[in-house]
């Protein structure tokens, strides 16, 4: 008996310790999850220049407005996209979220995780006329505006002109047909693929857009143009003139291009910072994506912006904060903190273009004419199925891109 009581005594002691730990923790109560009163949380993917930029504009907000800003930092943008669904479900997501609309924005909007801000920003200084139209439209879902733009992104085509030169190509291709011909010439002259592809939703979509396609939020998944875009890639993959970044041993397309493993890739302004840092001696050019006809290149204009969580405690204050996070002072900070992004306001985008010769091809007209990323509503799932289907087509070609897209239209169409 004595032994048993001693053992249970020890166990009881442990229980007390555990209870004490639990007790002191739970005194905060369930409300202490994401945000307290009088305090606005801003979530963003941190690291390097972003931290400097964010702390600069947060200080600007706190100077102008009597509000306490707290940051919720995700180590990478990937982590942000992985964590947000859980946080939306648990209502612990930050009040304000910085992200770009290549993320499943339409999905979160229809699920009610983020809220439209049209009415909330009416009393603030936000002037949507100061931005390229395509940029604002990209955040408009079903008549609601779901963010105020902060920076501009666009798709582009990047050429490693050293590799092109080695294959005897001096003029950049003007059409998709030229691009395919050049890719094959690079392959036969140098043995390297002409095109490297990072096979995910964003990059596959660029080729469909270049062929004149798009999704219209799920209405036109199986269009002829989308089929042509996929077939363009599949034809080049068949003879090795195009390869994935993985096949080339690169973690993404830019790395393959910087290392001269391929001649070209679709890309965007992020190539400028990357090439400058990791491959300062490699010659490259960044242009709009060649389209079906010469003289009608394609870019997707999209960008980063600050969205408002549906669970935000104080949407009015949060909207005022968003207005300050995107005002002219904050836009100047995009340039002065060397964020490496193109500011969203036309005026500052022009200034960025003047300072960045590599970005010269993306004039205000090109950007304004840009198409937006109109992914089907169940974006993530659609992306998984599209990419896996594409990889299967590359691997064994047992079906066709027509069948793949028809299947996706059935499943994700509207």
């Amino acid at each position, binding site marked *: 008996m004595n032994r048993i009581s*001693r053992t249970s005594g020890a166990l009881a002691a*442990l229980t007390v310790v555990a209870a004490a730990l639990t007790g002191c*923790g739970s*005194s905060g109560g369930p409300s202490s999850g*994401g945000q307290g009163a009088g305090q606005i949380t801003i979530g963003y*993917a941190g690291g390097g220049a972003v931290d400097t930029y964010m702390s600069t504009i947060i200080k600007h907000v706190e100077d102008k407005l009597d509000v306490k800003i707290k940051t919720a930092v995700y180590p990478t943008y990937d982590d942000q996209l992985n964590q947000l669904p*859980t946080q939306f479900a648990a209502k612990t997501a930050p009040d304000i979220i910085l992200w770009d609309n290549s993320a499943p924005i339409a999905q979160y909007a229809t699920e009610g995780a983020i809220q439209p801000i049209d009415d909330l920003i009416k009393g603030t200084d936000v002037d949507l006329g100061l931005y390229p139209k395509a940029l604002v439209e990209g955040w408009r879902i079903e008549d609601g505006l779901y963010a105020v733009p902060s920076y501009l992104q666009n798709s582009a085509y990047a050429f490693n002109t050293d590799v092109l030169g080695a294959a005897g190509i001096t003029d950049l291709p003007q059409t998709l047909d030229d691009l395919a011909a050049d890719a094959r010439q690079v392959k036969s002259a140098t043995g390297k693929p002409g095109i490297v592809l990072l096979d995910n939703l964003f990059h596959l979509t660029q080729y469909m857009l270049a062929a004149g396609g798009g999704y219209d939020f799920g209405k036109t998944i199986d269009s002829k143009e989308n089929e042509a875009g996929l077939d363009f890639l599949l034809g080049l993959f068949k003879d090795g003139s195009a390869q994935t970044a993985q096949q080339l041993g690169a973690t993404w397309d830019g790395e393959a291009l910087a290392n001269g493993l391929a001649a070209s890739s679709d890309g965007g302004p992020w190539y400028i910072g990357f090439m400058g840092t990791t491959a300062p001696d490699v010659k490259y050019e960044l242009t709009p994506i060649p389209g079906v006809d010469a003289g009608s290149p394609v870019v997707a204009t999209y960008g980063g912006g600050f969205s408002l969580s549906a669970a935000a405690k104080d949407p009015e204050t949060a909207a005022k904060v968003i207005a300050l996070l995107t005002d002219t002072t904050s836009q100047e900070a995009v340039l002065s903190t060397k964020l490496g992004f193109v500011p969203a306001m036309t005026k500052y985008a022009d200034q960025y273009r003047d300072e960045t010769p590599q970005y010269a091809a993306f004039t205000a007209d090109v950007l304004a004419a840009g198409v937006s990323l109109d992914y089907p509503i169940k974006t993530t799932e659609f992306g998984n199925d599209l990419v896996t289907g594409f990889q299967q087509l590359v691997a064994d070609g047992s079906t066709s891109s027509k069948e793949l897209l028809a299947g996706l239209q059935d499943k994700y169409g509207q």
Partner: protein
Amino acid sequence: MSAVATRQAAAASPRSASGSRRALSMIRYAFLILFALVMAAPLFFVLYASLLSPADYLSLVPPTQLTLDNYSYVVTHAPIGQWYLNTAIVTAGVVLGAVIVNTLAGWALARFRFRGRQLVFLAIVAVLMVPLQAYLIPLYLQIVDLGWLNSYQALVIPFLVNPLLIFLMRQSFSTLPRELEEAAAIDGAGRFRTFLQIGVPLSITGIATQAILAGTWTWNGFLVPVTMTSDPDLFVLTVGLNSLQAQNYTLPTVQMAGVVLLTIPIVVMFLVFQRFIVPSIASSGIKG
């Protein structure tokens, strides 16, 4: 890990002077050294890559071209001291707590006769099969309910009980001869004293293995801390080092430097605890 292999090789030195034995031990040496090299090669590659400038990544350069820039980038761009501290606090908490909890549980399962013992054991093995990815979100919701988001205890308390470690300790205790405990019982030692004075000292290898496992998992863990913390002041090393990349691309050389910084304390910890795993190896080399 390679340290074990080489120490074992050293310990396995021949006692006999006979020629064939010597040849055999030469072969054994050669094999162990080769094995150690293969095991260590990727680690050397990480070290090498961390000393390259970004433009040189994946190419061979002369030693004069090596640089410490990646390390100074990490040190100047990040509160690495704070991250080390956070990681150390969480790891120490998990290791201390886990050793106590799981050792006690393992002893109970190995030595106590109670109704439903097999059932409890089966239940623990069953829990072992539930992957972290499956219970992390429910756990997150629980942590939110407790108000523990962005706290050390969110990273420690749920991970004190570890079915794999209970299983390890049960197996470890079950190798001990019962005669010693029976003798202790005759001498009037209670159950807890028997555990402390017989069970624990004789299973110190199991306990050290447990500490190493719990320590490395916690130290290297990423999915749990990235889910439970969003306050940069509470970042552990893995999470913090992950944030050390430019917005749209990664610099592999900086990341490799991060891995070196992450790994050094683990290696040190392993060398410390290794003495408990192989305490008398030099004197009992014949075993291998």
